[in-house]
């Protein structure tokens, strides 16, 4: 069952396009990027080349889990 944080991310990214994504610190998950204060500490930033990609939210990592607290 999706957590509240995961649902929020899904709602934010659903059907939208993004120029960049970040790899989570554990290297397992990919998150889209939009302007604002970076809440996620990323391991790396990826420029999405070619046509802008539509990303789906991936399972939350530990950083995002902390949003629930």
């Amino acid at each position: 069952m999706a957590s509240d944080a995961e649902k929020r991310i899904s709602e934010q990214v659903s059907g939208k396009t993004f120029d960049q994504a970040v790899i989570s610190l554990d290297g397992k998950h990919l998150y889209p990027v939009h302007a604002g204060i970076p809440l996620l500490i990323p391991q790396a930033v990826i420029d999405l080349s070619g046509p802008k990609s539509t990303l789906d939210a991936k399972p939350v990592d530990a950083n995002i889990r902390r949003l629930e607290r």
Partner: protein
Amino acid sequence: MTLANLLSEDQILPDLKAEVRWEAISEIVDLLVRSGRILPGDSESVLEAIRQREQTMSTGIGLGIAIPHASSDKVQEVVAGFGRSKRGIEFDSLDGQPVSFIVLFVVPKDQFQTHLRTLAAIAKFLNDRTVRDELSAANTASDILGVFQRRSP
């Protein structure tokens, strides 16, 4: 821009005195004021921006690492400071463990891409166990700067 280019010896504290998160952040911001990277009259504004970010979620990401950061119209370029604690600092970290290494940085307002890439570069750098071991073993600010110069991307 490399991480090493963000730092000089006078932006490095090899032995933080602070024992808790807010004291440690203040200690590093004070260092940046003394080194002339932040104007004395701007320090409270910068501190407040960092506090707001920390209150959203601690930047203590585990493995003894914390990366407090914020954007501010009080800086014209990326300003960074590094602090090491030999005793460890209570930081409300992800893994609940004390923090030994703090890289604090401030990015000019509206430079989101720079903000994100700086954050990623620092996280990737400190995720390397060899880097953390060398930072622990370093004796002086000069030695610590040497680790950044040798190891950072």
